[in-house]
């Protein structure tokens, strides 16, 4: 969505948008004056950068040799939750996708689909949240689009983001899912299940209260520190939907190896652990939005761990297992007793159970 200015700089819009009591209507997505106004009075000042100001439908970025691009759709419900909202989530999620390839994220786009009747006050809150998240991360939101669907055809707001980044020259072999080998060490940057439990308890209106908070965060700074200390890092993955379990399974499958995790080594908050016990869900399958999994050579494991622990987002980082030879690609886990269980892919959606 590009901005349009009247040639003499006169204001194009008779009345300013009411962000306190106004609501989105179908004209805001139609591409005409209303769309322009939404862009002029909300998106442009919030995302504030010269590329966006130029008013084109796309942004011209000076390219680098090794570009990384990633895209993500965000449909989280509820839109606002302890620790963040869909806006912050969308920015962090895309920054993290780019960062997991060893790239430095620089620019992103945001496509927003709004439901007719969505309060402008809430939209403003979300857009501001995106702006803050992007600015904090040094990332520009340089292009976007807005559409509006009829009431009942959307869940308030859906956001699709695409992020771009370049891999620095210093990163010789970028991390990738298929690079894990037997003997490599698996690390996690912090506690698991925080975001998933927060959303689950907020969404299902469970009669349960605790200071849950989403861990949504931009991880590129942590990644940079990690790569500096352990330049041979093999794989990076952020365990979002499907949780730690699915992410490790994905890595093993791509690399044709298996894994052995140690349950007692996996960091988890007491309240999250208790909530999972109460609900009967397995924290290994819950989403994390501010954590990463790293696979490094054994010789670099200690340096990787120290680097992560030295960063604000990695204080509780831990070594949680290792990659092993296994043509069947099973992820096994040693429980506290030394007994073993399989940590399989996620089937379906983790729902609370009574049995």
């Amino acid at each position, binding site marked *: 969505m590009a901005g349009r200015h009247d040639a003499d700089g006169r204001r194009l819009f008779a009345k300013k948008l009411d962000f306190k009591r106004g609501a989105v209507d179908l004209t805001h997505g139609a591409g005409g004056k209303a769309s322009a106004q939404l862009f002029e009075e909300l998106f442009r000042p919030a995302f504030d950068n010269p590329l966006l100001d130029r008013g084109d439908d796309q942004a011209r970025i000076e390219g680098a040799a090794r570009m990384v691009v990633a895209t993500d759709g965000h449909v989280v419900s509820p839109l606002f939750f302890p620790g963040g909202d869909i806006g912050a989530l969308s920015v962090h999620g895309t920054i993290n996708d780019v960062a997991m390839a060893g790239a430095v994220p620089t620019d992103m786009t945001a496509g927003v689909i709004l439901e007719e009747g969505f309060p402008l006050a809430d939209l403003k809150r979300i857009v501001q949240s995106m702006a803050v998240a992007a600015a904090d991360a040094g990332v520009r939101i340089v292009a976007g689009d807005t559409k509006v669907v009829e009431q009942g055809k959307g869940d308030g707001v859906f956001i699709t983001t695409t992020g771009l980044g370049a891999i620095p020259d210093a990163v010789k072999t970028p991390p990738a899912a298929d690079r894990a080998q037997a003997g490599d060490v698996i690390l996690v940057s912090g506690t698991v299940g925080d975001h998933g439990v927060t959303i689950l308890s907020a969404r299902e209106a469970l*009669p*349960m*209260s*605790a*200071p849950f908070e989403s861990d949504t965060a931009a991880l590129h700074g942590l990644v940079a520190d990690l790569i500096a200390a352990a330049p041979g890092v093999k794989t990076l993955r952020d365990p979002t939907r499907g949780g730690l379990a699915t992410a490790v399974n994905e890595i093993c499958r791509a690399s044709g190896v298996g894994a052995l995790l140690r349950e007692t080594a996996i960091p988890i908050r*007491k*309240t999250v*652990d*208790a*909530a999972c*016990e*109460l609900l*009967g869900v397995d924290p290994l399958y819950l989403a994390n939005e501010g954590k990463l999994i790293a696979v490094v050579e054994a010789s670099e494991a200690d340096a990787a761990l120290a680097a992560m622990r030295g960063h604000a987002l990695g204080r509780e980082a831990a070594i949680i297992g290792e990659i092993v030879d296994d043509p069947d690609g099973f992820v096994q886990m040693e429980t506290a007793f030394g007994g073993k269980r399989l940590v399989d892919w996620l089937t379906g959606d983790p729902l609370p*159970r*009574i*049995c």
Partner: protein
Amino acid sequence: MCLALPAEVVALDGDMATVNLDGVEAPVSLAFLDGVGVGDFVVVHVGYALSRVDPDIAAEQIDAMRGEETAGEPSAYGDVS
């Protein structure tokens, strides 16, 4: 089956109680249990307290499991009824 956990009663309000499990609080019905006090541990299933955990029996059982038998004959750590 019957996912249920022992949780500490931290507040009472007539027929209802608030339990706390490691920082997670939840409301629980006391419809099936009498004489529950703050500090008691109750077994909670789908929002109802079904039974109170007896701290003495629990302590005995924990010791027996560790192998710290009391003096005399080896104790069976189950009640033969």
